[in-house]
């Protein structure tokens, strides 16, 4: 046996492969239309926008891995709140960048603790708990920010839009973050515990897993990543707005699924998030390039997503 077939077989068995294959295919079809021009720019834009959804996708992935019924619907509201609070605290001054970051992350910690308190103390199912808390958080953001758009500090705006050789610096940071979170999921006791709980919560408890603390950490982590996303997004888009988080609710869940993780929990991977995020952006770009109208664009996006998920799950079944 030589090494090469073994390597290919292992690669093909990876559940995240399909997201990357789909992203690459869509990219190729796009530059086919332009005759090869603008391919690099499309990729730069894809990485830029995928970065933000991957950040919240990581948090959502950990929550979804906890098993059926676990999902964080408060991500958009948390993004909005953290963005509003951070820009107001920083007040356009470069010296307060770090303070702003800490405040944004603290918003995440507070939201995560509140979510988990609803789930565990009041025994509300996670979907309802995070949905209802998202209304409270959104209202807080509105009351706090009053809808006034404050510019981010110049240094933060520069950092979030900086590029090296056409690659956004922020994307490189988030690729590193994803790598770390993949290692946490696979190679640490915490990651194993999350995966164990997602397969069988009762068995996990009886195997000595600290179920309460593990779940709590996952919900707080998800909210903290949402806070981080809100902070960076307000720097990137020239200030916070009340609707800045909107699109990230369905995106974060879609990334987890398209990336090859199980919605039922217990079986997840982080690399798939990047593939899925690039894919989602590139699909829209492709359809725009070909001049599709809005209706047709939505229709095609839905059909393409279904096709990718079917292809990925067919692979899993034959394994």
């Amino acid at each position, binding site marked *: 046996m030589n090494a090469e077939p073994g390597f290919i077989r292992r690669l093909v068995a990876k559940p995240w492969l399909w997201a990357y294959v789909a992203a690459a295919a869509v990219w190729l079809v796009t530059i086919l239309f332009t005759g090869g021009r603008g391919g690099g720019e499309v990729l730069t834009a894809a990485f830029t926008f995928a970065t933000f959804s991957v950040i919240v996708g990581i948090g959502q992935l950990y929550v979804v891995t906890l098993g059926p019924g676990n999902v964080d619907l408060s991500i958009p509201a948390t993004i909005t709140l953290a963005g509003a609070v951070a820009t107001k605290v920083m007040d356009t001054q470069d010296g307060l960048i770090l303070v702003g970051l800490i405040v944004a992350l603290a918003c995440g910690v507070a939201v995560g603790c509140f979510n988990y308190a609803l789930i565990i103390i009041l025994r509300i199912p996670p979907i309802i708990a995070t949905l209802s808390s998202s209304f409270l958080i959104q209202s807080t953001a509105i009351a706090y920010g009053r809808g006034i758009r404050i510019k981010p500090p110049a240094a933060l705006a520069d950092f979030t839009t900086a590029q090296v050789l056409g690659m956004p610096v922020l994307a490189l940071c988030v690729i590193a973050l994803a790598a770390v979170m993949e290692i946490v999921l696979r190679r640490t006791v915490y990651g194993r515990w999350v*995966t164990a709980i997602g397969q*069988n919560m*009762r*068995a996990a408890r*009886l*195997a*000595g*897993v600290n179920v309460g603390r593990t779940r709590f950490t996952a919900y707080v982590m998800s909210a903290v990543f949402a806070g981080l996303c809100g902070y960076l997004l307000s720097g990137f888009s020239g200030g916070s707005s009340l609707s800045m988080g909107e699109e990230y609710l369905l995106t974060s869940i879609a990334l987890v699924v398209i990336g090859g993780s199980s919605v039922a929990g*217990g079986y997840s991977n982080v690399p798939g998030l990047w593939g899925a995020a690039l894919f989602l952006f590139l699909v829209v770009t492709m359809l725009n390039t070909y001049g599709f109208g809005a209706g047709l664009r939505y229709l095609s996006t839905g059909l393409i997503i279904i096709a990718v998920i079917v292809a990925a799950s067919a692979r899993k079944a034959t394994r």
Partner: protein
Amino acid sequence: MASAATPIISLNGVEKSFGAVRALRGVDLACHAGECIGLVGHNGAGKSTLMNLLAGVFPAEGRIEVDGKDIASRYSVATAQAHGIRCVFQELSLCPNLTVAENARIMHASLRGFGWRKRAGKLILDKLDEVFPGHGISASDIVGDLPIARRQMVEIARAFSVTTAPARLVILDEPTSSLDAHLASQLLAYVRSFVAKGGCVVLISHLLGEILAAGDRVVVMKDGKVVVERPAADFNRTSLVAAMGSVAHDEGANAATADTKRSETEPRVRVAADRQAGGPELIAHQGEIVGLAGLGGQGQSEMLIRIFDAAGKNARNVTVVGGVALVAGDRQTDGVFPLWSIAENITISSLRRMRRGPLIDGAATEAMAEDWKQRIGIRTPDMNNPILSLSGGNQQKALFARALGSDAQTVLMDDPMRGVDIGTKQEVYGMIRAEAEAGRTFLWYTTEMDELKHCDHVYVFRDHHIVAELSRSELTEEKVLHASFAEVA
């Protein structure tokens, strides 16, 4: 025996492989009306594969004849059902979110129209009354809320119930593994009456006494083949164990009969007596094997969970010194992580001491898995295979390895020998004894008298209370049964 007549189903040279694993290597078997076939063999010998095949769950190579017609290529669950071939699976196949009546309806499609729920309920309750008089199950109970013994009773009753399709051949895979002695004897009596009326039963069991008592014919399987097939009358316990290929131990011979005086030191586990009901308190010292006896489902499992939850906490009425680990008996609900490998399933409780820096030490977990593969004899070519690739008994061994391989000083065992073959049982008994001598404490819920003989001290449970406390010299089957039934008798 009507051996001259056409068999209900007959297999000729049937083979079945799962990937590289050859589960069946050419099996011949004929099931006739009016006989009970006892099927025995080690874990992984192919018994469960064979019965899945009879039930039409998956196809196989070879010749399968039903009522004399070869239908191997077209054999399916629907064909099996239409010919009255029913199956009671070891991993129960009821839907936990439905009621007992609704589960009965799943098998009987003819129960339709207005009032089907009521008719389904009557059908299943009548059968339960017939097989297990005094079962205490109601048709509107949600199956998931029932303890495992009652779930098993419902599954059995459902297999024997008849609407449009007849029940001619019923395959029972470890039907008594979750039942106590009383319920098991009710079932075996029913099996005999079913056979006397012209039915056929294939009984798979690791309890050889049951096979010898209920079977007309004994079929011994080993490594995917039928190695012995003879009338049950030709066997006794020892010769049957020998036929399975393991050395017969006289049970209880290695269990000392002398009483050891109970230690005066502070116990590892102490559960205060129930203030209302009275009764003795439960105590387990270092190095003791303490048995929790009584009929099935009398609160023994709940007691173990209470002790498990109390470890490391300030719980009321329960004091536990040191760590605890649990061996689940209901492995689907309480034990196995179905998406993981065997190695991951074994190491989950020991990960914290196998770290290098913040990361899990892959070499250490692999070494632990290999070590336990050897020590407890898990039948697999690779410990990185999925846990579900193992037979039920081998999955149970993995759960034992998880608990015994942890650093817990107290091990709680919740009727842990379900589906484990006799050879492995003997090895595990030896392992438990050795671990106890090295200072570990065991609390062992079991409904088998043979297993209680390995205990230093036994508490008998009835209706969620401890009603009797027996030291080893006092322990007899009569005393346990007497305490179990005191109010009824």
